[in-house]
């Protein structure tokens, strides 16, 4: 194929004259060995990409929850609307709690560090629940109930992250 920059086709002729099979690849057994060696790596890359995507999604949810709770600050000065906001804030972690409820109480392989975090978070959620039960009995406590609901949502979000990381770690073993 000739071109203005190579009108006589010299370059084309020289390149076309190069042998089509001058390379000696490794043999079939070596190809098979490399292929077998690469398989776990491919799988690990896939699991790693999924884990990274999950962490990014959780981080985005956490930021969104935090921003949502900040936009609710005017409710602090208006107890009536604060109680309404408390109701919606209580709905947000519902999906996360449903997911947590489906998990076994303890994973198949227990890691000491992660388990301590999980137990700590569960204890704090239980304490917040106690306070909410006590606070809900009184009247005119809208602001503190709202703060407790937000704290609870934050703790549930953290618990979801830890347990999800725990689940991924167990699956990749």
């Amino acid at each position, binding site marked *: *194929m000739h*071109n*203005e*920059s*190579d009108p006589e086709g*010299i*370059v*084309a*002729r*020289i*390149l*076309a*004259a*190069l*042998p*089509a*099979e*001058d*390379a*000696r*690849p*490794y043999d*079939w057994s070596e*190809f098979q060995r*490399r*292929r077998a060696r*690469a398989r776990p790596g491919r799988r690990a890359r896939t699991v790693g990409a999924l884990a990274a995507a999950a962490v990014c999604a959780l981080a985005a949810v956490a930021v969104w929850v935090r921003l949502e709770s900040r936009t609710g600050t005017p409710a602090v000065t208006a107890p009536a609307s604060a109680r309404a906001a408390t109701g919606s804030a209580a709905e947000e972690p519902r999906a996360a709690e449903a997911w947590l409820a489906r998990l076994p109480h303890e994973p198949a392989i227990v890691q000491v560090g992660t388990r301590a975090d999980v137990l700590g978070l569960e204890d704090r959620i239980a304490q917040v629940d106690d306070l909410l039960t006590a606070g809900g009995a009184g009247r005119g406590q809208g602001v503190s109930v709202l703060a407790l609901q937000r704290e609870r949502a934050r703790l549930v979000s953290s618990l979801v992250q830890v347990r999800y990381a725990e689940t991924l770690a167990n699956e990749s073993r």
Partner: protein
Amino acid sequence: MTRLVEISVSEAVLSLARAGDAGAQQRIYAAVAPATLTLIRRFVGHGAISQDLFQDTMVTLYEQLAQFRGEAPLGAWLRQIAISKCLMHLRSPWRRARLCLAALDEDTSAAALPLASAAISADVIDVERALAHLAPTARAVVWMFEVEGFSHEEIARSFGRSVSFSKSQLARAHVRLRAWFAPQGTESHAQRIRP
């Protein structure tokens, strides 16, 4: 020696290979591997990258063999896979980052050539050296246009660039190669191979 695009394999062997027969897969490997590695080396040079791309190309061949419908020779289908892998490599940001380091040691690929190709004639080594001195993108463009028969439009599409990109890369490659093949005061490669 057969060019990759012309290599075909019988339907019987293909059927066995699709069914996972290791013997048939090995026969296909023996038929296409040398031409495939040669083509990849024309694109990316003789380094370890060419081995990685070759391995990746062959793995893809076996993984996607069920999708090969046999409308063209197997080599033509495999050539598309190999070129696609090479272009992905050339476009990757990791390669661009590595180019900065390679620039510090610019002549290594060409210097290693005679050792890697001890059985090949001096003329071939000369042409390979000339190709190795081109920028990787220019080398890919000139090879696709002059040897593989791609049009400027097809090359532009492959690189996600304009037709003028392909034309200017080709023109620059021609200038450099012609200068390499016709050194002043000595017999040029072009003169040696001219009929």
